[in-house]
């Protein structure tokens, strides 16, 4: 059984690559951006910058498989993401604008619920609590948490279970300086384990060798917007 011929074949590409090709985004009748491309490799950090309304959140929702691109494609290791959305969702953790904190549930109950969905054990819950200095708040119900504490709980949730890709939408909003440092450390550790992260921010985020993608550098030109509305998808 253990002979060399039974070894799993070495994958051609041991390090995953996440790529966007000519993405276009429509919100209602309005074209938000067009022709946006990037290439994110294992351990990479992508910072999405741009003024309010540039489409950072929409882009993150596309990367999270929540919003279908109006044009272009997203590939993971060359395979179209939308062809197997379940597999994509399995490998990503998304933090949106909503913290999804339930007023009657305690911090620990909240984390335990999401851990059980992600197949993470109690040890991981404890580590997530510690990582964002929530251990002292573990028994506190969601309705008594401050905005920053809710944010920390939502961030702690992101760290549950192994995931190749973190997608964070303005994660530092409402956080104090110490919590921003804790988040930066968590992202750095995630990258050190060859994980990728894409973070939308308008104030910057501490991290080494970040690729910066200014979403407002991809304005839709009117002709393209019309072509999109014709129904590119």
């Amino acid at each position, binding site marked *: 059984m253990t002979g060399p011929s039974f070894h799993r074949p070495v994958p051609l590409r041991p390090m995953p690559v996440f790529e966007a090709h000519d993405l276009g985004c429509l919100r209602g009748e309005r074209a938000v951006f067009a022709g946006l491309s990037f290439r994110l490799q294992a351990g990479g950090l992508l910072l999405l910058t741009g003024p309010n309304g540039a489409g950072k959140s929409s882009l993150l*929702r596309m990367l999270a498989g929540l919003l*279908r691109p109006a044009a272009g494609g997203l590939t993971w290791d060359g395979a179209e993401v939308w062809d197997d959305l379940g597999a994509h*969702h399995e490998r990503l953790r998304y933090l949106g604008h*909503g*913290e999804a904190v*339930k007023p009657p*549930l305690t911090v620990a109950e909240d984390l335990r619920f999401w851990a059980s969905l992600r197949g993470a054990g109690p040890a991981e819950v404890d580590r997530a609590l510690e990582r964002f200095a929530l251990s002292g708040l573990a028994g506190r119900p969601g309705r008594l948490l401050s905005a920053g504490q809710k944010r920390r709980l939502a961030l702690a949730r992101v760290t549950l279970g192994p995931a190749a890709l973190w997608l964070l939408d303005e994660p530092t909003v409402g956080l104090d300086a110490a919590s921003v440092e804790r988040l930066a450390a968590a992202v750095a550790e995630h990258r050190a384990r060859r994980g990728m992260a894409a973070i939308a921010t308008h104030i910057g985020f501490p991290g080494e060798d970040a690729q910066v993608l200014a979403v407002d550098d991809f304005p839709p030109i009117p002709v393209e917007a019309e072509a999109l509305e014709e129904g590119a998808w």
Partner: protein
Amino acid sequence: MVGGAFGALVARDLRLALRQRGDALTVVLFFVLTAALFPFGLGPEPNLLARIAPGIVWVTALLAVLLSLERLFLADYEDGTLELLAQAPLPLEAVVLAKVLAHWLTSGLPVLAAAPLIGLLYGLPAEGYGVLLAAMALGTPSLSLIGAIGAAVALGARRGGVLVPLLVLPLYVPVLIFGVSAIDTRLQGFEGDASLLLLGAILAAALPLAAFAAAAALRQAVE
């Protein structure tokens, strides 16, 4: 994995409902109080009350369940939970069924448990109680399932709370008809009526239909 996640979601919703007991209590109290109002309006005529009892129980049960539909998805939609559930490793159809099960346990089941009380109030003949409970056990899950479609479709809409009854009430009519006729025929002394079978058939059809339709509507809502 999917089974564990399904159970975890049901347990979470039940825990939320237990901590916010007011919501579930409102449903039962609404059911009992509304049903208790009719005799005041119709007068204490025992024969009349016994005859209309099945209809009153079903109509008020239906309205009570309707009252609770808005909380099925709305809170999860507003606080971002739905987005996360859409990315959870269980299909959105299973998410819908888990939430419907929790909803039924905290609305349909208490209403079912309170139904004999209304029967008593209306002087329902003794042979009617068994079939009343059987019909409600088969019918109320369909109310939650069909209601889930309406609740999911109304999510993005302005004034969704008004939209849900308009969408859902017409779809409740078959359950109402067969629910009432199951009890009526039994009270008239007939055995082996098909109404209970038809209620079962509605439930069997609503189970997959509601899962797919509500999941499709939720996907639209989170986009």
